Structures are given as structure tokens and as C-alpha cells.
């Protein structure tokens, strides 16, 4: 049964040796799309792997879809209602697209052959891969493979969908298609979306969480994230040393983010501006590797 809180973590901690990946993260995520932003090494992937029951936390409590993942029964109950698209999904290149997604469907315990095949065709249609369902995965482009990864995560219309950079490598049309897919989701479904594409967050997410330095730095709506930069974005004809970040925009003028000088030409901020202000220059200095150390999952 769907609960209103799909993901509930309190004091979540995870370390890789001496490196802290998550440091006391507290979050409650409900239905809707939650965007997860953060610089490389902020702990996004570690957080998503934990939510996907792939990683066990070192400390803290976690409940997913109302179940406790620390018990075998709880994990099983969660995994049957979970869809996960890893950052680096592996594929069996010798399998056809259909066979690979069908294989995942079997691992999702869809045992009725006819119903499973119908479901596989449905998700392949959703991501626009029905035309290449008979093609070997080794012959697909990188973008198509990414869509295969998204397709398998949609199997069974999961109550909790965990997507780690699903639009990486997709062309603009495919990214729009992806947005369309998420827009058609069941309203009760909870989606956790990690991405570096702030446009995707702006277009899709009702809520956004910014992770930085293994901690939650922001938790609010996209408007609130943009609001962080309210009165702190201005245009000018040249560089401004007081700005924290600057670039030349489409108008050919400098767009500055930071503390504006008096009389500056203030403009409407975006969530990207808010994000930049939150993580600042430190965004370019990763605290931990984006992915964990080499280890085995049987």
C-alpha cells in the first residue's frame, strides 16, 4: 500500500574508509518528482544507492515505502515496488533490447509470461524503443542504451522511481520525451531524480534537494531555490569582480551572480542561479568520489 512518505531517512551516514559520503542526512520524500542536485562528489549517488536498497547505511534510520530495508522481508517488499536506473547501468550486449528488459522483468518477479511481455512492450513504447526491440543491445547508440535503462526502471509502474542522471547522453528530443514520460506518471508515484541538468529540474520537479559536502544544503520547491538568488543576479556590459559567478549570456551581456553593486540591473533569477549561490565555487572541488570504491555485490 502506498504511504504518503515514500522515503524517510533520519541521520543517514555513510563512509568509504575515511571519506564521508553522507553525513547525517534527514529527508522525507513524498509523491511527486524530487530533484537531487549537487556537485560531483556531493553524495547524490550514494544517497540514491541507499534509497535503491543497493547500499546499506552505516548509521541512521531509513524507511522506504513504509518498509524497513534492514530486514529481508522489508527489502523484498521495497524492491518489488521500486524502479531504479543506476548512473552506469550495465547491459548484456548479446541480448536483444526486448530480451534484456524482459530479463529484468523476470528479476522483478513478473512471472506471468504474457503479462510480462505486454509490460515490456509498454515500457519500450514509452521510451520510443519499440522499433528496435529486436536489435541486439551492442548495436544500440549510447542514447538508446540510456533509454533502455530508463525503460527497465519503469517496469511495473513502481511506487518509487529512483533515477540517477537518466538524461545524461540524451539528445534534446529524447530529453523532452523523458520529461513527457515522467509527466504521465501516476500522481501517487514518488520519483527521486538526480541530475546536473537544472532545466530538467525546473521542468519536472515539484521539490528540489541540494546535497553538498555530504549534507543537505537546501530542501524546498524550485521557486524557493530560484528565490535564493532573488536580487542577486544582474546584467552588465563587462566583468564585475564582485560577482561570484559570471558568464556572457545570449544577449551578449555579462550575467553576474553574487552580491550586486548598487544600481545594478537586476534580473529574474533561475534555479541554476540559486544553485550556484548555494554551492558556490566549492562546486568544483569534489569532497568524495561520485561513485563508491570497488566492492562486490553478489
Amino acid at each position: 500500500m502506498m504511504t504518503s512518505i515514500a522515503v524517510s531517512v533520519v541521520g543517514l551516514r555513510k563512509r568509504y574508509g575515511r571519506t564521508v559520503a553522507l553525513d547525517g542526512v534527514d529527508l522525507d520524500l513524498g509523491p511527486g518528482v524530487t530533484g537531487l542536485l549537487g556537485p560531483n562528489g556531493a553524495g547524490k549517488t550514494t544517497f540514491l544507492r541507499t534509497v535503491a536498497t543497493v547500499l546499506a547505511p552505516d548509521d541512521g534510520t531509513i524507511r522506504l515505502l513504509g518498509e524497513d530495508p534492514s530486514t529481508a522481508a522489508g527489502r523484498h517488499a521495497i524492491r518489488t515496488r521500486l524502479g531504479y536506473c543506476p548512473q552506469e547501468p550495465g547491459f548484456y550486449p548479446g541480448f536483444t533490447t526486448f530480451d534484456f528488459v524482459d530479463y529484468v522483468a523476470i528479476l522483478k518477479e513478473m512471472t506471468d509470461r504474457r503479462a510480462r511481455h505486454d509490460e515490456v512492450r509498454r515500457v519500450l513504447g514509452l521510451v520510443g524503443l519499440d522499433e528496435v526491440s529486436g536489435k541486439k543491445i551492442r548495436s544500440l547508440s549510447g542514447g538508446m542504451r540510456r533509454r533502455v535503462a530508463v525503460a527497465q526502471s519503469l517496469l511495473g509502474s513502481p511506487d518509487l522511481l529512483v533515477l540517477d542522471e537518466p538524461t545524461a547522453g540524451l539528445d534534446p528530443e529524447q530529453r523532452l520525451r523523458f520529461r513527457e514520460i515522467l509527466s504521465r506518471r501516476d500522481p501517487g508515484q514518488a520519483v527521486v531524480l538526480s541530475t546536473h541538468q537544472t532545466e530538467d529540474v525546473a521542468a519536472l520537479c515539484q521539490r528540489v534537494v541540494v546535497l553538498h559536502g555530504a549534507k543537505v544544503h537546501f530542501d524546498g520547491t524550485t521557486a524557493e531555490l530560484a528565490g535564493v538568488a532573488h536580487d542577486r543576479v544582474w546584467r552588465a556590459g563587462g566583468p564585475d569582480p564582485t560577482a561570484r559567478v559570471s558568464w556572457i549570456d545570449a544577449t551578449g551581456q555579462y550575467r553576474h551572480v553574487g552580491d550586486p553593486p548598487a544600481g545594478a540591473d537586476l534580473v529574474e533569477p533561475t534555479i541554476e542561479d540559486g544553485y550556484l549561490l548555494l554551492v558556490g565555487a566549492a562546486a568544483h572541488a569534489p569532497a568524495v568520489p561520485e561513485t563508491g570504491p570497488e566492492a562486490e555485490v553478489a
Partner: protein
Amino acid sequence: MSRSRPGPGWPDDRAVALATVAPLGRREARALALHPAFLIGLIVLPGLILLMAGAEPDPEARPIIDNRDLALVPVLTAWAVIVASGMAVLRNRRYSTEELWASLPTTPITRTSAHLVATLVGLPAGLAVLVASLILAWAQGETGSPLWTDILVAPLIVMGAGVVGVAVARWLPRAVFLYAAILAVTVLQTNLWYGDDRWRWLHFSTYGNDPPVAFDALYGRVEWHLVYVVGLIAFAGLLALVRHGWSTAATGVAIAAAVLVAPAAWVQTRPYAEADVARILSRLEEPDTYQVCQVHGGVTYCAHPREVAAIETWTGPVGSVLERVPADAVPADLEVRQRPTIELLDQAIPDGVRRPLEADPTRVWIDDGHVHPSGWVDASYFGELRLAYQAASAVVGLPVTWTAGTEQCLASGQARSVVALWLAGSASTGSTDSLRNLAAESAPGEPVHLDDTNIDTTSLVLEHGSVLDPADLVAAVALVDLDLSAAQVHSLLSQHWDEVVDPATPADRVLAWAGADPARAVEPLSGGDARPCPSTRGVEGA
């Protein structure tokens, strides 16, 4: 491409989802059947063997179906299946799907179970190789019937190899260990307890130590070996499952493996009870009490129940001899009755059987005037010539088999000796070749033993009643070279039969009747160890 792997996850769940095992097992079976290593093992390796066998037929090859050879034909397939099944298990590591798999409800032990179920595809694959081998054997003129209890181990070997591949890949998840496993299994199978027949039952195939087939039939243990091998496979499956910790499934498989292996191993290797020893001895001494008999051309042929198919290898040579002699010359009670070769050093033979036979070999090999093939008869190694010579000896009045405690006899220069060899050498293409070879290899003046082993105390094998004079062999070859039809030989011998069986009739008379060059006859052997052969037809020997 290097990919990162997630850190430590939750402990492996140990529940096997049976509802998932079936569809996943089917999917994995399909993947296994299409794996290049599997296809190579199924088609290319046996195909090479078949091509080699078909391209250069060995004229000396045994033209009979050798059940234990057949059982081992799929061994190369089994090697490939170890690799194929292991690589299927390692697929998720190779292509880095572990992270995704870890987020799915199907547990690793369920996936392992499915991989084990998928190895069932080895059964039809092994059967296919077996059937192809059988068809080839029959196409090449091999005779005899397959003994299913022996050869059905072949598909089990293929399936068992798949299970071994799964277990190895689960414990040692690197491809190189699969190749090491092939080596290890081969070394174990060929060396473990090698040289001690008592333990050959504990191999996948009992072939390794050249077991005495007839004794297997007497022991009645062969069927249990199939049960034992199934249990071994279950045990290998257990090794794969316990990689995920002890589970309910592992307990079930452990119980099944124990229930199959323990009694089957015990039955096969247990010491013999006195009643068993007495039963085996009595069957050896009185084969008529349990052998199965058939009548062909008025002659009774009897064989061990599991080797009845051997009879068809006897009827040809014996029938050829009998059709060339007068009908009333054939002893009315002539029987062709199997007696097994007994290797007294074979440790599989119970002491209670070996000792009495060692002390008195005549308990088994009795000079009763009947023909006694020791087992399968084939064209090579003088097999057909020996059998035909026994039948011919019975007809012309020479002792058929040797009796311990007496000397083999010599009928050098006698018409009956040359006729017996002529009949034997005309019995089949194989016997003709054997006769020529024997004559060519014999030293003039030295008696020839048709048997290829000397009479000794280590084996009880068929020994013929008579030894041969090389000159008689040369004369017989001259007669065979006339290439007379069976009817012509029959007519000729019918005219002179009384003289043929008379020990006083010299060999050159036969050459003269047939129109062969009498100059090829030489003086009879004299002296030596052999005694003159008596006549078993009531005519005193010379």
C-alpha cells in the same frame, strides 16, 4: 570500460523464489544453449570427432558398440559446458549489472538456483551427442545394442559439468578458474583411486579402470551408479547454493544429495555378503542357470542377460562354419555359451570368488565341447577367427577349449587341423585377414597359440584346446585363397567327411581334393611340448 561498483550492500537474502526460478531458469537455459562455448562443445568438438572417425576408418577398429566409449564421447562437450555455464554466472560481473540486480527483488540465491535449473539443457544436449555417436557407430557397421544403464551417464556428465561450472563461478568468480576446473575434474576423474577397481564406482564414469563388464552384470550395481552420479550433481549444486549462506533450499538439496549419494556409494562399494559371493560363483560355474539363450540356425547361443546383444556378433562366424560342413557333422547338442574373462588380479573381484577360481580354473573354463566366447567378438584382434576356430574344432573333433591341468594338444599335419583352420579363416572377412596375419607372423617349426595371452595365473581367459602348426596355417591360407563358395566347400567336405575327421588323414589330402598346390604342404611338426590331440568324435588320435 572500467565501471565503479557500489560499496557493501545488505546481506544476501537466502529465500529462493520458486516462482521466479522457473522463468529465469528457462531464460538462462536459452542463453546457455546459445553460448558460443556451449555450441562449440555441442557441435564443433563432437563434429570433429565424428569427422575424424568418418574420414579415416580404422580397419582394425572393433566393429561393435562400446557402451563405455559412447558414455565418454560427450566429455569434450562437458568441458565446454563448464565454461559456458560459468560464464553465464559471471555475466553480471562482466557487464556490470550487479548494481541494478541488487535493487531487484530476485535474490542472488534465486539467480543461482535458476542457473542450476538451466543446466538441465545439458541433458538433451548430451543425449543429442550420444544419439549422433550411436548413429555414426551403426553407419560404420558397428553391431550390438547400447546398454542404457552404461551410456545414460553421458547426458548426466554434460549436465553435471554445467552444475560444476555454476559452483566454480560462484566461489571463484574469474573465468580462469573455469578452465582450471576442467583440468581439475579431468585429473580427479583419471587419477582418483586409479588402479583400484573397487573405487571406480566413485568416478563420474566407471570407465577409467577398464572394469570387467561381465562382473558388473553379476554384481547388479550398474543401475546404482546412475543414482550415484545424480547425487554427485546434487552435491555440486549444493556447493553453489551454500555460497549464499546456509538456506532452506541448501538444506533440501543437501538431504537429496545425501539420500542419493550415500546409499548408491554404499551399494556399489560395500563388501560382499557370503550369499552374494556364493551367487556370483554359482553363476560363473553354472552360467546356464541365469543366462539368456536364443536359437539361431539350430544352434543355441547363451549370454549374460545384460549382454544378449553380443549374440549377434557370434552368429555370423559360427553360422559360416556350420554352413560349410555336412549337417549331420554338427554335434546335436552344440551350444555357444558365454563365459567371462576373469582377471584374477582385479581387486573388484571378491576374494571369495577369486580364491576358488585361482585354485581350480576348471570351475569356470570347462572342456565340455561347447563353444565359449568370452564376451563381445570383433573382427580385430583375431576375435572372429578364434570363435570360428572353436566352432570348427567342435565339428572336426578337436578339443574346443583348454582344461587346466592338461596340456594343449597338437594335430599337426592332420586334415582336420587344416580343415578347421580353413573353415575358421573363411568365416568372415575379419577372420580371413586374421588367418593370413597369423600365418605370416608365425615362425616355421614353432607351435602357434591362437590365444594372445599365455596361460598364466593372473587371468582366466579362453584358451583353445589345440595349438597350431605354422605349416597347417599356410595350408589353410592356400585353401582360403581358392576362394570357393560356401556351397562348394560344403560339397567338397561332404564327399570326404569321414576322412576329414580321421586323425590319420594327412593335411595334403585336403589340398589335393580342393585342387590347391600340394607343394605348399610341409612335413608335420614333431616333438615339442604339445601332446597329440585326441578326437572328440570317438576316433583315436595319431
